[in-house]
Protein backbone atom coordinates (compact mmCIF):
# COMPACT_ATOMS: atom_id res chain seq x y z
CA UNK A 1 0.00 0.00 0.00
CA UNK A 2 1.22 3.42 -0.68
CA UNK A 3 0.01 6.94 0.11
CA UNK A 4 -0.32 9.70 -2.37
CA UNK A 5 0.02 12.82 -0.19
CA UNK A 6 -0.86 15.18 -2.93
CA UNK A 7 -4.21 13.58 -3.65
CA UNK A 8 -4.86 12.51 0.00
CA UNK A 9 -5.44 8.89 -1.12
CA UNK A 10 -4.18 5.57 0.16
CA UNK A 11 -3.81 2.44 -1.88
CA UNK A 12 -3.17 -1.23 -1.31
CA UNK A 13 -1.73 -3.77 -3.65
CA UNK A 14 -3.90 -6.21 -5.56
CA UNK A 15 -2.43 -9.08 -3.49
CA UNK A 16 -3.29 -7.29 -0.23
CA UNK A 17 -6.79 -6.57 -1.48
CA UNK A 18 -7.35 -10.25 -2.47
CA UNK A 19 -5.94 -11.48 0.86
CA UNK A 20 -8.27 -9.07 2.71
CA UNK A 21 -11.38 -10.23 0.85
CA UNK A 22 -10.41 -13.89 1.34
CA UNK A 23 -9.76 -13.29 5.06
CA UNK A 24 -13.14 -11.58 5.57
CA UNK A 25 -14.89 -14.47 3.84
CA UNK A 26 -13.12 -16.92 6.16
CA UNK A 27 -14.17 -14.92 9.23
CA UNK A 28 -17.76 -15.02 8.04
CA UNK A 29 -17.64 -18.75 7.24
CA UNK A 30 -16.20 -19.63 10.64
CA UNK A 31 -18.67 -17.51 12.59
CA UNK A 32 -16.20 -14.89 13.87
CA UNK A 33 -13.73 -17.45 15.21
CA UNK A 34 -10.98 -16.38 12.75
CA UNK A 35 -9.05 -13.12 12.62
CA UNK A 36 -7.09 -11.41 9.86
CA UNK A 37 -3.38 -12.23 9.97
CA UNK A 38 -2.01 -11.12 6.61
CA UNK A 39 1.73 -10.46 6.54
CA UNK A 40 2.50 -7.05 5.15
CA UNK A 41 5.10 -4.35 5.60
CA UNK A 42 2.55 -1.68 4.78
CA UNK A 43 1.72 0.05 8.11
CA UNK A 44 -1.54 1.51 6.84
CA UNK A 45 -2.69 -1.93 5.65
CA UNK A 46 -1.70 -3.41 9.00
CA UNK A 47 -3.69 -0.65 10.71
CA UNK A 48 -6.68 -1.56 8.56
CA UNK A 49 -6.29 -5.24 9.55
CA UNK A 50 -6.13 -4.30 13.24
CA UNK A 51 -9.25 -2.11 12.95
CA UNK A 52 -11.16 -4.90 11.19
CA UNK A 53 -10.04 -7.45 13.83
CA UNK A 54 -11.17 -5.11 16.62
CA UNK A 55 -14.54 -4.72 14.90
CA UNK A 56 -14.85 -8.50 14.55
CA UNK A 57 -13.94 -8.91 18.25
CA UNK A 58 -16.74 -6.55 19.23
CA UNK A 59 -19.21 -8.21 16.89
CA UNK A 60 -18.15 -11.63 18.19
CA UNK A 61 -18.77 -10.54 21.80
CA UNK A 62 -22.23 -9.28 20.91
CA UNK A 63 -23.02 -12.46 18.99
CA UNK A 64 -21.66 -14.67 21.77
CA UNK A 65 -23.79 -12.87 24.37
CA UNK A 66 -26.79 -13.15 22.08
CA UNK A 67 -26.07 -16.85 21.45
CA UNK A 68 -25.73 -17.52 25.19
CA UNK A 69 -29.00 -15.74 25.91
CA UNK A 70 -30.75 -17.66 23.13
CA UNK A 71 -29.24 -20.93 24.33
CA UNK A 72 -30.28 -20.27 27.93
CA UNK A 73 -33.76 -19.47 26.73
CA UNK A 74 -33.82 -22.70 24.71
CA UNK A 75 -32.64 -24.71 27.72
CA UNK A 76 -35.30 -23.15 29.94
CA UNK A 77 -37.96 -23.79 27.32
CA UNK A 78 -36.74 -27.39 27.10
CA UNK A 79 -37.04 -27.71 30.86
CA UNK A 80 -40.56 -26.26 30.87
CA UNK A 81 -41.55 -28.63 28.08
CA UNK A 82 -40.09 -31.60 29.96
CA UNK A 83 -41.95 -30.65 33.14
CA UNK A 84 -45.23 -30.29 31.24
CA UNK A 85 -44.66 -33.67 29.60
CA UNK A 86 -43.99 -35.18 33.02
CA UNK A 87 -47.17 -33.62 34.42
CA UNK A 88 -49.12 -34.95 31.44
CA UNK A 89 -47.90 -38.42 32.42
CA UNK A 90 -49.29 -37.92 35.91
CA UNK A 91 -46.24 -36.70 37.83
CA UNK A 92 -47.68 -33.70 39.66
CA UNK A 93 -44.53 -33.31 41.73
CA UNK A 94 -42.55 -32.15 38.67
CA UNK A 95 -41.36 -28.54 38.95
CA UNK A 96 -39.22 -26.12 36.95
CA UNK A 97 -35.67 -25.88 38.40
CA UNK A 98 -33.93 -22.90 39.92
CA UNK A 99 -31.96 -22.01 36.78
CA UNK A 100 -35.14 -21.26 34.86
CA UNK A 101 -36.89 -19.71 37.85
CA UNK A 102 -33.92 -17.33 38.18
CA UNK A 103 -33.43 -16.88 34.43
CA UNK A 104 -31.86 -13.61 33.26
CA UNK A 105 -34.84 -13.21 30.97
CA UNK A 106 -37.78 -11.65 32.80
CA UNK A 107 -40.42 -13.27 30.60
CA UNK A 108 -38.88 -16.71 31.18
CA UNK A 109 -38.77 -16.08 34.95
CA UNK A 110 -42.45 -15.18 34.93
CA UNK A 111 -43.36 -18.12 32.69
CA UNK A 112 -41.46 -20.65 34.81
CA UNK A 113 -42.87 -19.23 38.04
CA UNK A 114 -46.42 -19.25 36.70
CA UNK A 115 -46.00 -22.80 35.42
CA UNK A 116 -44.81 -24.03 38.84
CA UNK A 117 -47.65 -22.21 40.60
CA UNK A 118 -50.19 -23.68 38.17
CA UNK A 119 -48.92 -27.22 38.67
CA UNK A 120 -48.98 -26.70 42.45
CA UNK A 121 -52.58 -25.48 42.21
CA UNK A 122 -53.60 -28.50 40.13
CA UNK A 123 -51.88 -30.83 42.61
CA UNK A 124 -53.65 -29.13 45.51
CA UNK A 125 -57.03 -29.29 43.79
CA UNK A 126 -56.60 -32.97 42.97
CA UNK A 127 -55.66 -33.69 46.59
CA UNK A 128 -58.80 -31.85 47.71
CA UNK A 129 -60.95 -33.84 45.29
CA UNK A 130 -59.35 -37.10 46.45
CA UNK A 131 -59.99 -36.18 50.09
CA UNK A 132 -63.61 -35.37 49.24
CA UNK A 133 -63.99 -38.65 47.38
CA UNK A 134 -62.51 -40.59 50.32
CA UNK A 135 -64.83 -38.81 52.74
CA UNK A 136 -67.82 -39.47 50.50
CA UNK A 137 -66.90 -43.15 50.16
CA UNK A 138 -66.51 -43.46 53.94
CA UNK A 139 -69.88 -41.77 54.48
CA UNK A 140 -71.58 -44.00 51.92
CA UNK A 141 -70.08 -47.01 53.66
CA UNK A 142 -71.29 -45.74 57.03
CA UNK A 143 -74.79 -45.11 55.66
CA UNK A 144 -74.86 -48.62 54.20
CA UNK A 145 -73.87 -50.06 57.57
CA UNK A 146 -76.49 -47.98 59.36
CA UNK A 147 -79.11 -49.02 56.82
CA UNK A 148 -78.63 -52.66 57.78
CA UNK A 149 -78.40 -52.90 61.56
CA UNK A 150 -78.64 -56.49 62.75
CA UNK A 151 -79.71 -56.93 66.38
CA UNK A 152 -79.49 -60.10 68.43
CA UNK A 153 -82.85 -60.05 70.26
CA UNK A 154 -82.51 -63.43 71.95
CA UNK A 155 -80.37 -66.50 71.79
CA UNK A 156 -80.68 -67.73 68.19
CA UNK A 157 -82.94 -64.78 67.27
CA UNK A 158 -81.74 -61.95 65.03
CA UNK A 159 -83.75 -58.87 64.08
CA UNK A 160 -83.32 -56.63 61.06
CA UNK A 161 -85.25 -53.39 61.50
CA UNK A 162 -85.71 -51.69 58.13
CA UNK A 163 -86.31 -47.95 57.85
CA UNK A 164 -86.92 -45.94 54.68
CA UNK A 165 -86.77 -46.94 51.03
CA UNK A 166 -85.40 -50.28 49.93
CA UNK A 167 -83.82 -50.34 46.48
CA UNK A 168 -81.87 -53.09 44.73
CA UNK A 169 -78.53 -52.05 46.20
CA UNK A 170 -79.84 -51.81 49.74
CA UNK A 171 -81.64 -55.10 49.30
CA UNK A 172 -78.37 -56.71 48.19
CA UNK A 173 -76.54 -55.21 51.20
CA UNK A 174 -79.29 -56.44 53.51
CA UNK A 175 -79.10 -59.93 52.08
CA UNK A 176 -75.30 -60.15 52.33
CA UNK A 177 -75.13 -58.71 55.83
CA UNK A 178 -78.00 -60.81 57.15
CA UNK A 179 -76.62 -64.06 55.71
CA UNK A 180 -73.17 -63.30 57.18
CA UNK A 181 -74.70 -62.65 60.61
CA UNK A 182 -76.83 -65.79 60.45
CA UNK A 183 -73.75 -67.87 59.75
CA UNK A 184 -71.65 -66.02 62.36
CA UNK A 185 -74.27 -66.42 65.13
CA UNK A 186 -75.66 -69.74 63.91
CA UNK A 187 -79.07 -68.13 64.35
CA UNK A 188 -82.20 -70.16 63.86
CA UNK A 189 -84.68 -67.24 63.72
CA UNK A 190 -84.72 -63.94 61.86
CA UNK A 191 -87.29 -61.19 62.26
CA UNK A 192 -87.43 -58.58 59.54
CA UNK A 193 -89.29 -55.61 60.95
CA UNK A 194 -90.56 -53.11 58.40
CA UNK A 195 -92.35 -50.74 60.78
CA UNK A 196 -90.10 -47.96 59.44
CA UNK A 197 -90.98 -48.65 55.82
CA UNK A 198 -93.75 -46.35 54.64
CA UNK A 199 -93.86 -47.32 50.99
CA UNK A 200 -93.66 -50.84 49.64
CA UNK A 201 -94.15 -51.51 45.96
CA UNK A 202 -93.92 -54.80 44.08
CA UNK A 203 -90.17 -54.44 43.61
CA UNK A 204 -89.54 -53.71 47.32
CA UNK A 205 -91.74 -56.62 48.31
CA UNK A 206 -89.85 -58.82 45.90
CA UNK A 207 -86.57 -57.73 47.56
CA UNK A 208 -87.91 -58.75 50.99
CA UNK A 209 -89.09 -62.12 49.72
CA UNK A 210 -85.68 -62.81 48.22
CA UNK A 211 -83.87 -61.83 51.43
CA UNK A 212 -86.11 -64.07 53.51
CA UNK A 213 -85.91 -67.04 51.15
CA UNK A 214 -82.12 -66.76 51.08
CA UNK A 215 -82.07 -66.80 54.89
CA UNK A 216 -84.36 -69.83 54.95
CA UNK A 217 -81.98 -71.70 52.69
CA UNK A 218 -79.51 -71.52 55.59
CA UNK A 219 -82.06 -73.30 57.80
CA UNK A 220 -83.33 -70.14 59.46
CA UNK A 221 -87.00 -69.50 60.18
CA UNK A 222 -87.96 -66.02 58.96
CA UNK A 223 -90.76 -63.74 60.13
CA UNK A 224 -91.76 -60.36 58.76
CA UNK A 225 -93.32 -57.92 61.22
CA UNK A 226 -94.54 -54.34 61.33
CA UNK A 227 -96.44 -54.15 58.06
CA UNK A 228 -98.35 -50.86 58.29
CA UNK A 229 -102.05 -50.81 57.34
CA UNK A 230 -101.38 -48.52 54.39
CA UNK A 231 -98.56 -50.76 53.22
CA UNK A 232 -100.76 -53.86 53.59
CA UNK A 233 -103.48 -52.14 51.56
CA UNK A 234 -101.01 -51.23 48.82
CA UNK A 235 -99.63 -54.75 48.68
CA UNK A 236 -103.13 -56.18 48.27
CA UNK A 237 -103.96 -53.65 45.56
CA UNK A 238 -100.75 -54.47 43.76
CA UNK A 239 -101.48 -58.17 44.05
CA UNK A 240 -98.14 -58.87 45.73
CA UNK A 241 -97.99 -62.49 46.90
CA UNK A 242 -96.52 -62.72 50.41
CA UNK A 243 -98.15 -66.07 51.14
CA UNK A 244 -94.80 -67.80 51.12
CA UNK A 245 -93.52 -65.79 54.09
CA UNK A 246 -94.73 -65.63 57.68
CA UNK A 247 -96.03 -62.18 58.67
CA UNK A 248 -96.95 -60.90 62.15
CA UNK A 249 -98.20 -57.60 63.52
CA UNK A 250 -95.17 -56.26 65.32
CA UNK A 251 -91.70 -57.06 66.59
CA UNK A 252 -92.98 -58.24 69.98
CA UNK A 253 -95.29 -60.79 68.36
CA UNK A 254 -92.47 -61.86 66.12
CA UNK A 255 -90.20 -62.51 69.08
CA UNK A 256 -92.97 -64.39 70.95
CA UNK A 257 -93.56 -66.52 67.86
CA UNK A 258 -89.89 -67.39 67.65
CA UNK A 259 -89.71 -68.27 71.35
CA UNK A 260 -92.85 -70.46 71.05
CA UNK A 261 -91.32 -72.31 68.14
CA UNK A 262 -88.06 -72.64 70.04
CA UNK A 263 -89.89 -74.20 73.04
CA UNK A 264 -91.89 -76.49 70.79
CA UNK A 265 -88.72 -77.78 69.16
CA UNK A 266 -87.09 -78.32 72.55
CA UNK A 267 -90.21 -80.18 73.70
CA UNK A 268 -90.18 -82.31 70.59
CA UNK A 269 -86.60 -83.36 71.37
Amino acid sequence: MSENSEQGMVSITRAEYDALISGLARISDREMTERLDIKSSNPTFNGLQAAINALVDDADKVLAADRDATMNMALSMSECFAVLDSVRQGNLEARIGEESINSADELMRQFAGTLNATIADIESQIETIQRQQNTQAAMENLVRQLQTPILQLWDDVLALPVIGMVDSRRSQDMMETLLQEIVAHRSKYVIIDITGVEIVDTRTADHFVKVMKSAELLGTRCVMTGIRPAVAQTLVELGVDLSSIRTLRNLEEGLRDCLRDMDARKGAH
Partner: protein
Amino acid sequence: MTTHSLDAKGMRCPQPILKITAMLPQVAPGDVLEVSADCATFEEDVRKWCDRMNKTLLAVTKDGDVTVAQIQF
Protein backbone atom coordinates in the same frame (compact mmCIF):
# COMPACT_ATOMS: atom_id res chain seq x y z
CA MET B 1 -34.27 -50.23 24.27
CA THR B 2 -35.01 -48.45 20.98
CA THR B 3 -32.72 -46.12 19.05
CA HIS B 4 -34.40 -43.08 17.53
CA SER B 5 -32.85 -40.76 14.94
CA LEU B 6 -33.03 -37.03 14.48
CA ASP B 7 -31.53 -35.23 11.48
CA ALA B 8 -30.85 -31.63 12.51
CA LYS B 9 -28.40 -30.85 9.72
CA GLY B 10 -28.83 -27.38 8.25
CA MET B 11 -30.31 -26.04 11.49
CA ARG B 12 -28.63 -23.34 13.51
CA CYS B 13 -28.37 -23.64 17.26
CA PRO B 14 -30.47 -23.65 19.32
CA GLN B 15 -32.86 -25.23 16.83
CA PRO B 16 -31.32 -28.74 17.15
CA ILE B 17 -31.71 -28.52 20.95
CA LEU B 18 -35.35 -27.54 20.65
CA LYS B 19 -35.90 -30.38 18.16
CA ILE B 20 -34.42 -32.80 20.71
CA THR B 21 -36.75 -31.39 23.34
CA ALA B 22 -39.72 -31.91 21.06
CA MET B 23 -38.79 -35.62 20.91
CA LEU B 24 -39.28 -36.01 24.69
CA PRO B 25 -42.82 -37.45 24.50
CA GLN B 26 -41.78 -39.99 21.88
CA VAL B 27 -38.57 -41.31 23.46
CA ALA B 28 -39.08 -43.62 26.42
CA PRO B 29 -36.72 -43.67 29.40
CA GLY B 30 -33.70 -45.81 28.51
CA ASP B 31 -34.10 -45.30 24.77
CA VAL B 32 -31.30 -43.66 22.76
CA LEU B 33 -31.70 -40.66 20.48
CA GLU B 34 -29.03 -40.21 17.80
CA VAL B 35 -28.84 -36.61 16.60
CA SER B 36 -26.89 -35.43 13.56
CA ALA B 37 -26.17 -31.71 13.28
CA ASP B 38 -23.70 -29.45 11.52
CA CYS B 39 -24.11 -26.35 13.65
CA ALA B 40 -20.69 -25.18 14.92
CA THR B 41 -21.77 -25.05 18.58
CA PHE B 42 -23.85 -28.21 18.58
CA GLU B 43 -21.54 -30.31 20.74
CA GLU B 44 -21.28 -27.62 23.41
CA ASP B 45 -25.03 -27.05 23.29
CA VAL B 46 -25.98 -30.72 23.47
CA ARG B 47 -23.71 -31.16 26.52
CA LYS B 48 -25.45 -28.26 28.26
CA TRP B 49 -28.85 -29.70 27.32
CA CYS B 50 -27.99 -33.14 28.72
CA ASP B 51 -26.72 -31.58 31.97
CA ARG B 52 -29.84 -29.49 32.40
CA MET B 53 -32.27 -32.24 31.45
CA ASN B 54 -30.54 -35.05 33.38
CA LYS B 55 -29.94 -37.14 30.29
CA THR B 56 -26.83 -39.18 29.54
CA LEU B 57 -24.63 -38.15 26.63
CA LEU B 58 -23.31 -41.54 25.54
CA ALA B 59 -21.01 -40.40 22.71
CA VAL B 60 -20.14 -37.54 20.42
CA THR B 61 -18.49 -38.32 17.10
CA LYS B 62 -17.49 -36.08 14.19
CA ASP B 63 -17.66 -36.83 10.52
CA GLY B 64 -16.42 -33.77 8.66
CA ASP B 65 -18.73 -30.88 9.54
CA VAL B 66 -21.36 -33.21 10.95
CA THR B 67 -21.47 -33.95 14.68
CA VAL B 68 -23.39 -37.01 15.85
CA ALA B 69 -24.53 -37.13 19.47
CA GLN B 70 -26.01 -40.21 21.15
CA ILE B 71 -28.26 -39.33 24.07
CA GLN B 72 -29.80 -41.85 26.44
CA PHE B 73 -33.15 -40.70 27.85
